[in-house]
Each structure stands twice: as structure tokens, then as C-alpha cells.
């Protein structure tokens, strides 16, 4: 891969040509039903989404193709290539789909760029010129090896929302530090590890909806979170911090490893008071047992794909005060864990 001068105006020209060719292709199709003037191709765009990926990432395309149907975007896919030699490349394509039973294609434009690490600092001015005006900008840092890459700070600086994924991250202190650092000014940071907890949190909340639950919430004394995997998952600390934050009390927290799993995950939450206890346990991959006092119930936590997690996150473009409180509380929990006798 060599170095090519890439400029926003050149890419925007390529996009114009792309739309023209999409329109021409469709001119040969039978006319779209509807009123006169109905266009055969519909351009949809509600934000700019920058996806920063590793060079060997082969599944991101599928996720983005699904995602633009929920959140039509101008996609900018930045692949960070390996190697030390400077390299820059860019090209444009369209993500199109035909809604079932319809004859009008809906398309989102995609700009693909690749840059080696040493060339990354040249990228922000290019992306700045490609951002769709007046619409939000989200940056999804997908590459596992890209967290803690200072060369990307310029790209991240363009975004209103930064999306990371702490699932699988072992160094939790460094990760929390990274998230806190980038939550600057109007920019929000979100973590897909937190998004995965929405179903857990909803299930817990549901157990405290009635008067008995309310009374029980006031008496809770201990939190025990069980996980499987080689290291404590960030989600365990997120849950603990959220429970403390919600109850506005410093309850005793125990985070305990109970088995192996290929990727560290929370498998059970126990909230205990003197008389009864409340627990939520994943019994198999998806089946969940809810227990509150004398009552048991089942539910299912749907297996969420990365696309579904992103869809939820991109629906929350404003402040997420609960997550912000959780982020603020996690360092204290980590410090408590380190201080506790092993």
C-alpha cells in the first residue's frame, strides 16, 4: 500500500459521482410507483459515524451495513494498518438496501480510508472536511489494539460521542482512566460493556417495582456479583457502581470468580438483606432465573450483537447521567478491591 494524497474535496467529488451513477443505474429500472418526481434512490443520513478498525477486521462491514438501517449515516471507516511505513488511501462506496416489498433503494455513503499509525496524524483534517454539517458525529473505536493510541486523539476530538468496548479488557484502571480523560467538554463517552448491562439493570429494577420491593431496597445490605472468566470484567464494577449509585449508599460489595468462560462476564447478581435475598442468575447462555423472596421467575436475555448494542448507544446522543455517575464511582470501587485482602 502506498501513500496517496487524499483530500476532502476529492472524496466529496467521488461521492457526487457515486450518487450520479446510482441514479443512472436505477433509471433503467421500471419507474417507481408513487407521485411524479419520486426518486429511485433515497439518500439517508442522520449523522456522521467514524469507525476506527484494525487492519484484520473482516466483520465490521456486516455490522455497519445493519447499523445504517437504524441510524442512516455517512460512514467513515478508518482502518489502521500495521507497519511503520507511511500510507494513506481512500475510496467511496454506498451501503444500499431495498426495503422488503419496495422498489426504492435506500443508500448511505461510505468512505473507506486506511492509514498506518505514523500517518494517523494526517487524518483529522481530512475527516473534518467530510463530516456532514449540522448533524452529530460519533466515533466508534472498534479495534481492540486501538485504545490508548494517542495518534487517534485528533480523530476522537472530532466526535460528539466516542464509543469503546471494555468487554475483554483486563487492565480496568487504565481503561477507566482512558474513558474519563476523553469525556471532555460536550463529548460523551460510552462503553458497550455498559450497554450490555441494560437487560441486567432492567431485570433488577423490575424486582423493586412494588411496595414489597421498595421496602426491600431500603434494607439491602450487601451486593455480591459473580463472574466467570480469567479476570474481573468491567461490567462487574459497572453493576456494583450502579447499584451503589442507585441506592445512594455505600453497600458492601463482593466480586467473586465462580468459573471459567472464554470472555469474562457477569453471571449472577445477589442483593441481600437480613430477611430475604434477591438474585438474578444466568442459568445457561441466555436463560435467566429471577428470584425475589418467595417468588421465582424466568426471563431471557437476548443475545445482543454488536449491531444491536450500537443501535442502542446511538439512540442516546445526549447526556447519560446514570453512566456518568457510574464512571465517577468505579475508581473508588477499584481502589477498594485492591485494598481488600485477597
Amino acid at each position, binding site marked *: 500500500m502506498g501513500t496517496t494524497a487524499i483530500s476532502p474535496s476529492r472524496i466529496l467529488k467521488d461521492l457526487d459521482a457515486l450518487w450520479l451513477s446510482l441514479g443512472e443505474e436505477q433509471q433503467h429500472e421500471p419507474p417507481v410507483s408513487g407521485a411524479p418526481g419520486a426518486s429511485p434512490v433515497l439518500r439517508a443520513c442522520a449523522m456522521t459515524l467514524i469507525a476506527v478498525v484494525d487492519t484484520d477486521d473482516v466483520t465490521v462491514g456486516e455490522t455497519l451495513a445493519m447499523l445504517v438501517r437504524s441510524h442512516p449515516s455517512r460512514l467513515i471507516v478508518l482502518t489502521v494498518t500495521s507497519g511503520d511505513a507511511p500510507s494513506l488511501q481512500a475510496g467511496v462506496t454506498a451501503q444500499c438496501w431495498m426495503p422488503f416489498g419496495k422498489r426504492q433503494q435506500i443508500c448511505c455513503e461510505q468512505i473507506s480510508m486506511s492509514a498506518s499509525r505514523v500517518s494517523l496524524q494526517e487524518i483529522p483534517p481530512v475527516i473534518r472536511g467530510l463530516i456532514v454539517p449540522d448533524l452529530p458525529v460519533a466515533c466508534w473505536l472498534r479495534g481492540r489494539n486501538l485504545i490508548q493510541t494517542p495518534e487517534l486523539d485528533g480523530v476522537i476530538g472530532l466526535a460528539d460521542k466516542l464509543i469503546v468496548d471494555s468487554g475483554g479488557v483486563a487492565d480496568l484502571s487504565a481503561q477507566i482512566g482512558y474513558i474519563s480523560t476523553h469525556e471532555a467538554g460536550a463529548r460523551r463517552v460510552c462503553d458497550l460493556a455498559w450497554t450490555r448491562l441494560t437487560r441486567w439493570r432492567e431485570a433488577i429494577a423490575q424486582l423493586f417495582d412494588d*411496595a414489597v420491593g421498595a421496602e426491600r431496597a431500603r434494607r439491602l445490605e450487601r451486593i455480591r456479583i459473580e463472574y466467570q472468566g480469567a479476570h474481573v470484567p468491567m461490567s462487574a464494577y459497572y453493576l456494583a457502581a450502579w447499584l451503589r449509585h442507585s441506592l445512594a449508599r455505600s453497600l458492601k460489595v463482593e466480586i467473586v470468580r465462580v468459573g471459567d468462560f472464554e470472555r469474562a462476564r457477569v453471571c449472577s447478581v445477589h442483593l441481600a438483606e437480613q430477611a430475604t435475598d434477591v438474585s438474578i442468575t444466568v442459568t445457561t447462555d441466555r436463560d435467566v432465573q429471577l428470584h425475589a423472596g418467595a417468588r421465582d421467575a424466568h426471563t431471557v436475555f437476548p443475545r445482543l450483537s454488536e449491531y444491536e448494542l450500537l443501535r442502542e448507544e446511538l439512540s442516546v446522543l445526549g447526556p447519560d447521567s446514570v453512566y456518568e455517575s457510574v464512571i465517577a464511582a468505579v475508581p473508588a470501587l477499584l481502589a477498594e478491591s485492591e485494598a481488600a485482602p485477597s
Partner: protein
Amino acid sequence: MTPSSNPFRDATRFERRVRPCALVIFGANGDLTKRKLIPALYRLAYEHRLPPGFAVVGNSRTEMTHEQFRDKMREAVLEFTEETPFEEKIWNDLATGLYYDSGDLKDAGCYTRIKARLQEIEHSRQTGGNILFYLSTQPSHYRAVIHGLGVANLAKPGNGAWRRIVVEKPFGHDLASARELDDAIPRVFNEEQVYRIDHYLGKETVQNILAFRFGNSIFEPLWNRNYISSVQITAAESIGVEGRGAYYQEAGALRDMIQNHLLQIMATVAMEPPAAFEAQTVRDERAKLLRSIRPFTHDEVRLNAVAGQYGPCRVGGQALAGFREESGVNPEAQTDTYAAVTFTVDNWRWAGVPFYIRSGKRMTKRVTDIAIRFHSAPHSPFQTGNHDSASWAGPNLLVLRVQPEEGITLRFLSKLPGSGMKLRPVEMDFKYGSSFGMRSPAAYETLLVDALTGDATLYTRRDMVEASWEAVHPIMEVWQNTKKEFPNYEAGSWGPKASDEMLGRRGHSWRVP
């Protein structure tokens, strides 16, 4: 404890959830329960929006055990639930809370048994004494059920609990019967406990009219007589009465569609901005609009309302029966299977703007939409010879599509590429489904959650129901006393010629949706 005081609630992320409660369905062996209510409840269970102790008590005259009722409802979920996989465990959890008690609605013992069942459920499933009654029976039973609930003292909740009642449409078959029903309800339930359902108001796209109008600043300044020349609301069905001939010949399009659904849509399109998106304020504004509809004299009815009835026809090689040939229909029925009305609104915003509303069966296609037609540009500089492409193309048009292909389209003029100033209309198109790419909740899911959580914003109110009956009352009076020359439109058409003439008198024409 209210959901908002649950310390674990997260309004940014969590869907609205229902507190522990029980739902009592009168008419549980009917079509609505099978096709809409139970599939909606399953979907809510699938999305974890029902509380663990949630219970349903079904009632109808048919004898059935709890188990038979559960089996029947399971079949209904399998047959009528769309876009949601069937999960045995979720169904089993929901099904353990399903109970059935048969009984004659005129028998006081029926309510005593239901009361005993509810007390048992309150204890075993910790529903907290919270109960939603759902009237899904024939409307002729409504008063008996309300009376029975009152006698059994089921309408008044204990400490901290709530009792509500959902009343399905039709709310009466005319103004007088609507008032009779409305007079019977307050003897047992307070108005705040009553949820009159009009499922059109629960449709996402109808709710989106409010978001469109009051969430944006660019449309509302144009939303008045100075910029809008007319509004057309169309609710067309391609099917006929589909085995409901006996019912439909007593109802007709004016009663079945215009008096309720379409006047509610009109009120949503034309109401003043509410101070807050709350039940009281939104419904106040809708009610004000409905009360502002100018009442017709009998002479005005003849100029502003058209009745139609479809005749037999062949469409695509298939012979379609006329309405009078449908099963259960009187061969001389005077029923309107099509109705079109020109309403006007007596207020400053809408004075002089006609609201053309039409609904019919066996029309060209199934479509419900609202077309806002703006005034033409006051002067067109683009005339070449005798041809003015701007006036040929018509004025700006904003179309709010309710179904199918929910969305919003704005038609405006653009220059055709090339030399010369030739204009052509183009569309700016927002498609609800493709822009959000996610499943929209069915109207009954939305409305059930609303009733179970005590949000009446999307429900109608006594004054709204009576105002909409008052708007159509003169038309019903004239039509009842007029022998109409039916059939007067062919199946597969857009309705009778007289309907086109009604608009033609004002220099307008129906658009083809």
C-alpha cells in the same frame, strides 16, 4: 411505590414498565382478545415490560377451564404475533398468570366470582389490588358490565391501589346512545379511571404527527389558513366487509371510521400546541378542536357529505360481490360503505380551510394518509408561452402517511437539469421504517402499557367522543331520511362521482394516494 420512585429506574435507557397488576378482559373469547390483546401482552412480556406477578382474568359466556383458555391464547400468540419469536419459557411465565371465569354479564354472580378470583390473585401473585378492566364485549353489554362492577364494589380501589377501565369503540351508535353510556359510566367510575380506546391514536405515525408539528419550529408557522389551502384525510381499504356484513350494515363508514378514527386524526393535525405532552393538556386541545368543527344544517349536509356503496365488479379476472350481495347483508341495505365529508373549523387558525375526509371499503388500495395542500405561489415567473410548469405541477404538498409505508413526504418544485427553466415536482421523503430500521410497537402494545401505567394521553375523553358525534349527527339524520341510489361506485375505484363533485365545487380534487 411508584415506578418513578424505584431507585433503579433509568429513564434514558429503560422502556416504560408496568407495575404489578391484573387485567380483566370481558369478551375474552372474542376476536380482539385473540388477534390483538394477547399477542400485545406476549410482546410486552417478551420485552420484559410486564411485572413478574402480572395476571389476566378472561371472561365470556363460553365454558372453559383455565388450561383450555391458556391453550387457546397460546394458539392466538402463535398465529397473530408478528415480528417476535415465540419463546416457550416466556409464554409459560405469562400463561401461569392467565385465568378464566365464564359467566353471564347480566348475572351478579359473575362479578362475585371475578372478585373472588382477583382477591386470590392479589394474594398469590402480589398484584397489589391494581386492576385494569377491559371491555372487549359487544357494546350492548357495556352498561351491564359497568353496573356489575359497581355492585360488586370492584371499581373502588383500596389503599394505594388503582382501578381503571378501558372501553373499546364504538362509544354508542349515535349521539344519544353515546350520552347514555357516558351517563352510566360516572355512576361507577370517575372520568380519570376511564380509558376510551381509539387504536388509531396509538399508531406510531399518528403520534409522530405531534412530534412533527410540535418538535420542529419550521412547520408550525405555516400551519394555518394563510399557507394551507386544504387538508385531505383518506382511509381506504381494498377489502370488503369480509364476513362482517351483518355488523357493518348497521354501522357504515361514517360511524365506523369517520366519527372516531378520522376525526381524532383531524383533531391531531389541527389542534393548537399543548403546553405539555400530558394527558390533560393534549386531550384539552383535541377536544377544543373537535368542538370547533362547524355543525352542518341539513341543507349543508347535502353539499358537504357524500355516501357511497360499492357494487359488484370484476377486478383482475376476479368477480367481486357488491355490498348487497355480501353474506348477512340486506339486499336493499342503505349502508354507506364509503363516506366523504367536507368539514370546516371555526377558529382563527383554520377559518375557510376545508378538511376533506373520506373512508371507504373495496377501494383501489389500502392506504391511510393525510395530505396538507399549501397555497400556490402567489406569482409564477416561469411561464413560457401558454405553459406555466409551476402551476401545472401543483402547489406544495405535505403528505403524512399513516399506513402502509409510514412516513412523511414533502413535494416541491425543482428545476429540470438542462437549458431552459422547466420545473418538475420532486419529493423529500422520510420513511419511518427505513429511517429507524426498528420495529414499531403495535398500537395495542402502546395503548395497553399506557392504560396499565395510567397515561391517558392517547385515549379519548367523554367531551371528545360527544363532540365527534355532534359533528356527524346532522349527516346521520339526513342520510337516515334519504333513500340513496346505491350502489354508486365500483369496487376497485376511488369512490362515487358525487365525491369528486363535492371537492370540485370548491375548485379542488381528490389526490390519488
